[in-house]
């Protein structure tokens, strides 16, 4: 394999949680040296989320599953940027840096004097990207933003929901990963331009705006016809039948589902043969797409009468073999065990110190013939794991200086929590059985490591 493309690119990463870390994770996967900067009194909050084995003992902040997925392959430097000494060290790193990635609310970098105009004074060809909720300018610029709010704000939720029901969110923070990928592309475009021109630049990415192209069809319909979208559940404006159909429950009574799209009359004929109901193909109510759209209720009833007897994954294969789009609604465990993803090498196995191996999904949805992006076995960094390497190696600080910085709490490897750590340990213990009782989780599977083949050797 040829070297990865970004091997001579160093990135200072001031982002937290999901969108920004997705951007820098992609760049790390492509070979960049990404130095993630946190403060010990302001660690990335997802270090507290989904602690592996739900174990809050010892250095729990180094064992977050959520943090692992977003930060595998990066380095960790702690710097308290609220202290003058922390900001000064940051500024000393900038000349050694190609790209700065940050995702604060716009006022923050300005208040700290770390905005682009200041940084490019010391590194004229610096590339910097700010990924904020609503961009750097405009009346909402300093609104704080979470991905759970940006999906509805970008109008995606106006298209999401059951028929005649309210707008709904997705079950994940949809705009965060989307804008994270976009941020990585924006940096690659800026690096491309720098190779040609020698110039750096500043990128203002509004996560709100970056998500809006998804609703392009609905925006055009409004611009052309003053028509607002109607929520149509899982149906399609163009194809029928299309929907999500109930299948046979599994042994423990959990519901299973299958999505189906029939794109044209030929596929409808093939569908009817495949499910052993040739009489449906003769039924005049369903003869062409307009008939099928008009009689979608009856159609859904009939299809449901077939799917309810089927195992959802087998039904997917049966219909796909007949040339019809069908897909089982997999639960997250089934995703982890899916033979297609496994055969394609979708999961990187990563040994997280103190917690063992875990499968982590590839973040770039592509395979390359001449490179293999990914964390290359590297774990998500422990808090401050690379303090000495970065400050000692890159800036040449002595052991004495580093010790003093530790004493002044400019750097460190343990979070400064508002409440005592013992209380934090208590608070971070997730009440999984209560989540199960309220209906948000299935029964815990204690043998999950065995099922995934990641037992300790």
């Amino acid at each position: 394999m040829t070297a990865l493309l970004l091997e001579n690119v160093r990135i200072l990463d001031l982002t937290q949680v999901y969108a920004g870390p997705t951007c820098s994770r992609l760049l790390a996967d492509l070979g960049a040296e990404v130095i993630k900067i946190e403060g010990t009194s302001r660690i990335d909050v997802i270090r507290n989320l989904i602690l592996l084995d739900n174990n809050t003992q010892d250095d729990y902040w180094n064992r977050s599953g959520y943090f692992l997925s977003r930060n595998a392959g990066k380095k960790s430097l702690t710097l308290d940027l609220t202290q003058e000494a922390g900001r000064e060290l940051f500024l000393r790193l900038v000349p050694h840096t190609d790209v700065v990635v940050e995702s604060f609310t716009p006022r923050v970098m300005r208040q700290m004097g770390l905005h682009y105009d200041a940084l490019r004074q010391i590194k004229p060809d610096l590339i910097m990207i700010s990924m904020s909720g609503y961009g750097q300018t405009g009346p909402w610029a300093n609104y704080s933003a979470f991905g759970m709010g940006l999906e509805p704000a970008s109008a995606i939720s106006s298209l999401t929901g059951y028929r005649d029901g309210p707008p709904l969110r997705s079950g994940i923070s949809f705009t965060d990963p989307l804008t994270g990928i976009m941020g990585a592309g924006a940096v690659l475009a800026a690096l491309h331009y720098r190779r040609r021109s020698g110039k750096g630049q500043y990128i203002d990415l509004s996560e709100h705006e970056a998500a809006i192209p998804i609703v392009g069809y609905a925006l055009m319909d409004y611009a052309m016809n003053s028509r607002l979208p109607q929520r149509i559940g899982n149906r399609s404006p163009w194809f029928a039948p299309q929907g999500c159909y109930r299948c046979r429950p599994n042994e423990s009574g959990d519901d299973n589902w299958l999505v189906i799209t029939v794109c044209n009359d030929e596929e409808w004929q093939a569908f009817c043969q495949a499910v052993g109901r040739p009489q449906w193909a003769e039924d005049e109510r369903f003869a062409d797409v307009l008939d099928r759209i008009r009689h979608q209720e009856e159609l859904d009833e009939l299809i449901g009468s077939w799917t309810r007897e089927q195992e959802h994954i087998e039904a997917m294969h049966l219909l796909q073999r007949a040339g019809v789009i069908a897909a089982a609604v997999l639960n997250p465990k089934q995703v982890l065990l899916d033979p297609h993803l496994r055969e394609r090498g979708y999961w990187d196995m990563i040994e997280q110190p103190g917690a063992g191996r875990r499968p982590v999904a590839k973040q770039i949805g592509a395979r390359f013939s001449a490179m293999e992006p990914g964390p290359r076995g590297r774990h998500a960094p422990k808090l401050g794991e690379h303090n000495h390497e970065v400050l000692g190696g890159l800036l040449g600080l002595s052991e004495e200086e580093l010790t003093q910085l530790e004493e002044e709490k400019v750097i460190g490897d343990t979070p400064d929590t508002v409440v005592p750590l013992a209380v934090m340990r208590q608070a971070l213990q997730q009440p999984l059985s209560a989540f199960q009782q309220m209906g948000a989780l299935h029964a815990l599977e204690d043998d999950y490591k065995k099922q995934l083949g990641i037992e300790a050797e």
Partner: protein
Amino acid sequence: MADLALADLRVIDLTQGIAGPYCTKLLADYGAEVIKIEPLEGGDYTRRLGPFPNDIPQHDRAGLFLHLNTNKKAITLDISKQSGRVILRKLLTQADILVESYSPGYLPGLELGYDDLKAEFPSLVYCSVTPFGQTGPYRIYKGNSLACMALSGLMYVSGDPDKEPLCTGGEPAEYFAGLSAWVSILAAVGQRSQTGKGQYIDVSMLESLGTADEYNTIMYSGYGAIRKRFYSRHLFLYPSDIFPCQDGYIVVISGASGFPTGMALLLENPDLQANPLFSPILWPRTINWRQLDEIITPYLMNHSWQDLLTRAQELRLPFAAVLDPKMLLENEHLRERQFFVDIDHPEAGRLTHTGAPFRMSETPMRVGRAPLLSEHTQEVLLDLEYNKEDIVILRERGVA
């Protein structure tokens, strides 16, 4: 005139639909020359999907096509014919990138696969965009955004517990795949600048949604928990949900520090700070969410979304608006940022388009329209040194 970031790149675009065209739109909008090759009969199928002005179908007025194909050139070419393939190969001599979205095996069947071309075009970056990729048992399966939402596990956790799993609107998997392809192409172009060599990129729409998994699979591999469909709710931060209010909807998000004080102040009831549901500890609220809803819903129903949004943000609570396309177009923030751009089109008239998804200080996005069907066939063939008589013959033979 400002420089364009990707002005030195030339792209041959054999894609249709959403994912591939969104990828090449991003390349074109930031400066690449994109030559889109469409089938002679009707072109890209999105030219038939609408929306159309006054619902009158016409291939040059299709809204989704106009949205996804800005700044491209369009030629028609039948690559299943030998003469069409000759023209494609001539185009590739001047190209950096080929993007295609045919079913796996289709182009290799025409001797236009990567392995057929790499000897002749060693620096070519060749990118294929398909639902499930070029390898693995599902490679021959058909797919769309809905199918990818299902197989990625995202749909399993979206929707209400007493209803069917719900897909996210707007065909989002297609856009994820387009972004993945765009990032992958820029990565391969970067590598080429060091090695001089191109490569093959196999983009899977399903795997492009992988970044959107958030914490679903890690909850199982982390401690054996499988999420259920539960109002599309964020399990660890309640509330982070859409609530009805006096004049519509509002996203109520308490954020990391909304309890006890911020939320109590917003609700104009400081006594609530003593309520156990307003404790900074997250779990009691998540578990007793119905009780919390009973406290906040009456207040929300008496206040407008704009009032709630403004006051919540003053308290640094990350509330958000629930907008529809009309509200987006009228939104004062987007207006002040001049996000939307008006683009004139000879057939469709002046239409509002989405603007730059990110703003580069030195190399801005360019604003330009989508091409008419076959608009640039003549120009592109003349550039390849076909003469006008040749082009008449190619047209008569149904090649171009």
